[in-house]
């Protein structure tokens, strides 16, 4: 059974603001928001209008390209606003939570067809992502295999949340995995980070040893059964599989999740339980270090998360909030020549790499200007796949589709390049390059 994959390449950052392993409180906000941008690649069609009453599980919007894919409200109450921006793009749907927790009840599902139907109706489909393109799975395509990632080793990761997979959420997780198994002719794989973790599921468990990004589904799939051209796999986070399991067990949705509140700007980093779409101002209320300098509020972690600002909301897929200083008024004199005792870096040109590791408090600065790719093999050090990242990036920039296919574009997601983007001396926006490349490719291919 011991199916172990050891990965040498990766990134291990020691940041200040690790969440202490206890759930401090449960936050039930009066308003929550559904942000269509959280669900990359859909064309949202809103079906509610201000004043409409909604229940937990009521449909609020669907994807125009795949109308079966629906998105639901996590709370019961009343829609107060549908905010639109330029060209009437839906920015967010704001719902007033009446706290009654009235829920839509869904029918029990026992066959593959019923399970699929249930996931689509209940909004749980949104948690199923596919490769290629790293978007919400196309319901018309059956996946070859399904990959569930059951750990996170990004900076300040919410490890406590994953511990519940073997604890209070074990049953729901097993149920969710079982349901997923019905949707593929292939296998369901669960990636964990230690042989000691035993998750009682019907899935095949694979142990991944190594630093970030070994927790990414793309890396895991690459080492178990990589995606070839024409194949589709599904990828899910185990914490989202739990939500699917709860639905199957109780006949209603329950999106409550354990969220780590982390980062050097947080007074007492710890965990809270809350719903996606909860305002950041509520999650962070009274828990920020007093400071007049600008700070960056990130839904997710510092490498793959989204800068949502204090006015933003917890993203649909995130189990972590990180707050770091923005740093836009820090002007370091002759910084390129300083010994760098406190520098957060993987480069041995700074003294900090020769000293014992200390937790760093990085800000959001780039620390340099954008350049052409000068250094070689820099990405490879933090990219644990048999893919040549630099050559793939160059193919994507040139948008040479043949070359992108040959070099493995179907296997990757932007998050797989997060570590590369961190170490990049040339400060190129690699995740953005890959995201745009995947979107353009998807358009071209469909």
């Amino acid at each position, binding site marked *: 059974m011991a199916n172990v994959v050891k990965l040498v390449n990766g990134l291990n950052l020691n940041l200040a603001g690790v969440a202490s392993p206890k759930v401090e409180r449960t936050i039930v906000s009066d308003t929550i928001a559904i942000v269509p941008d959280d669900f990359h690649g859909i064309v949202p069609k809103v079906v509610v209008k201000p004043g409409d009453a909604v229940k937990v599980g009521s449909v609020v919007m669907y994807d125009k390209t795949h109308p079966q894919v629906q998105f639901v409200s996590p709370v019961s109450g009343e829609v107060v606003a549908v905010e639109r921006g330029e060209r009437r793009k839906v920015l967010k749907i704001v719902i007033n939570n009446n706290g009654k927790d009235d829920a839509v009840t869904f029918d029990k599902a026992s066959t593959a067809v019923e399970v699929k139907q249930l996931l689509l109706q209940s909004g749980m489909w949104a948690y199923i992502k596919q490769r290629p393109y790293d978007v919400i799975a196309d319901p018309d395509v059956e996946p070859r295999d399904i990959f569930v990632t059951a750990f996170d080793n990004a900076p300040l990761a919410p490890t406590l949340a994953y511990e519940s997979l073997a604890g209070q959420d074990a049953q729901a997780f097993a149920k969710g995995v079982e349901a997923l198994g019905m949707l593929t002719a292939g296998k369901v794989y669960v990636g964990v980070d230690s042989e000691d973790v035993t998750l009682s599921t019907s899935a095949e468990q694979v142990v991944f040893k190594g630093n970030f990004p070994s927790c990414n589904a793309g890396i895991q799939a690459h080492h178990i059964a990589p995606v070839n051209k024409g194949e589709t796999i599904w990828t899910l986070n185990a914490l989202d599989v739990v939500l699917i399991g709860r639905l199957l067990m109780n006949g209603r949705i329950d999106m409550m999740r354990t969220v780590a509140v982390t980062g050097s700007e947080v007074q007492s980093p710890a965990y809270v339980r809350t719903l996606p779409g909860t305002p950041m101002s509520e999650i962070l209320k009274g828990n920020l270090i007093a400071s007049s300098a600008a700070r960056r509020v990130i839904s997710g972690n510092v490498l793959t998360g989204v800068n949502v600002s204090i006015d933003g909301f917890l993203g649909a897929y995130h189990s972590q909030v990180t707050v770091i200083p923005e740093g836009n008024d820090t002007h*370091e004199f002759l910084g390129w020549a300083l010994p760098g005792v406190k520098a957060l870096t993987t480069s041995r040109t700074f003294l900090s790499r020769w000293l014992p590791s200390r937790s760093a408090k990085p800000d959001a600065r780039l620390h340099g200007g954008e350049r052409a790719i*000068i250094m070689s093999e820099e990405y490879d050090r933090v990219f644990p796949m048999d893919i040549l990242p630099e050559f793939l990036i160059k193919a994507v920039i040139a948008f040479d589709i043949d070359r992108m296919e040959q070099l493995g574009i179907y296997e990757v997601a932007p998050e797989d390049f997060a570590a590369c983007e961190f170490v990049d001396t040339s400060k190129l*926006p690699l995740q953005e390059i890959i995201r745009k490349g995947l979107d353009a490719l998807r358009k071209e291919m469909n």
Partner: protein
Amino acid sequence: MKALRKFLDKIKPNFEPGGKFAPLQSVFEGFESFLFVPATTSRSGVHIHDTIDSKRTMTVVIIALIPALLFGMYNVGYQHYLAIGQLAATSFWTVFLYGLLAVLPKIVVAYVVGLGIEFIVAQMRHHEIQEGFLVSGMLIPMIVPIDTPLWMIAVATAFAVIFAKEVFGGTGMNIFNVALITRAFLFFAYPSKMSGDNVFVRTTDTFGLGGGTVVDGFSGATPLGQVATHVGDKLTLTNIVGEPLTTMDYFIGLIPGSIGETSTLAILIGAVILLATGIASWRIMASVFAGGLLTAWVCTLVDPSIYAAALLSPIDQVCLGGFAFAAVFMATDPVTAARTKVGKYIYGFLIGVMAIIIRVFNTGYPEGAMLAVLFMNAFAPLIDHYVVEANISRRLKRAKKA
């Protein structure tokens, strides 16, 4: 520093489009980012970035060059005073000062010309000034003979920066190493000033310092120059006043040669800096030496009456001439080298092989290390191509199997 920051913020608007000095925007930004790390924060993707940037990278390379440069300056003085027979009577600092005065104008010329072009091009293209030339500008004076006229360095630098770098798109886009193109340009355009017995030792005074006449029996031939003209089967290399040299002398480097190239010891100190900081690729460096030593050993088996260099031991071969300098500072230029792991071994090894082959079998060129690097620059993309194709075919094979 706050006052300086305030001052910069105050004059900044003048350099923005529409301002009084708008045509100097790139120059201003260049100096501003030199003084203060830009406070730009990430707008997409990762929220934190590694503290390293290309300025830091280039700075480390320059620091690594300093031992060889300082030694080179001293050696210029040393060879001069040896030639005029006043070495014993001259203090260390005077010897060094002579070398400093001889070398400094070359550094200044290379930087002024190269950076001048860089500034103009950056402004024309509206991008930031890039740091690449900071290293090239230091390398150029170090790989030329001391008696190269300044105007030649200016012409060659301008040619190299424009035609080997800017036309390809600037730092990071060039195919050939800029410093080596400068050297190659000089070598083929002004051969009489770049090789032979009269350019590697300065016999005249520098800014009035160190006047005198050369001693009897003086010969300015470099060790490799002597090898190239040697006939017979017993080889004894000598210094410029006819005393025999040993392997230790080649290693320490008090021998005639291009300014920065003579001391293998000083170059190895630079190599340690580059490898310890992880800036240069140990794969390339090690495989250049491996290729060189192996080929030099094979060459000891050929007939020395035709190829005199066969009489040199492999250790002598890598200590003499520009071999070590090319291996440590030229071959490892990441932009022009092979960029894949496997490719780097092949690239480096072939540089070592080529350098020794040119040296031994082409008696027209006493030294081949720099040409070997330039030659392999052209082949680096081909080497990478095959490594990338291997990766692609692995992926295709996997798809077929599935």
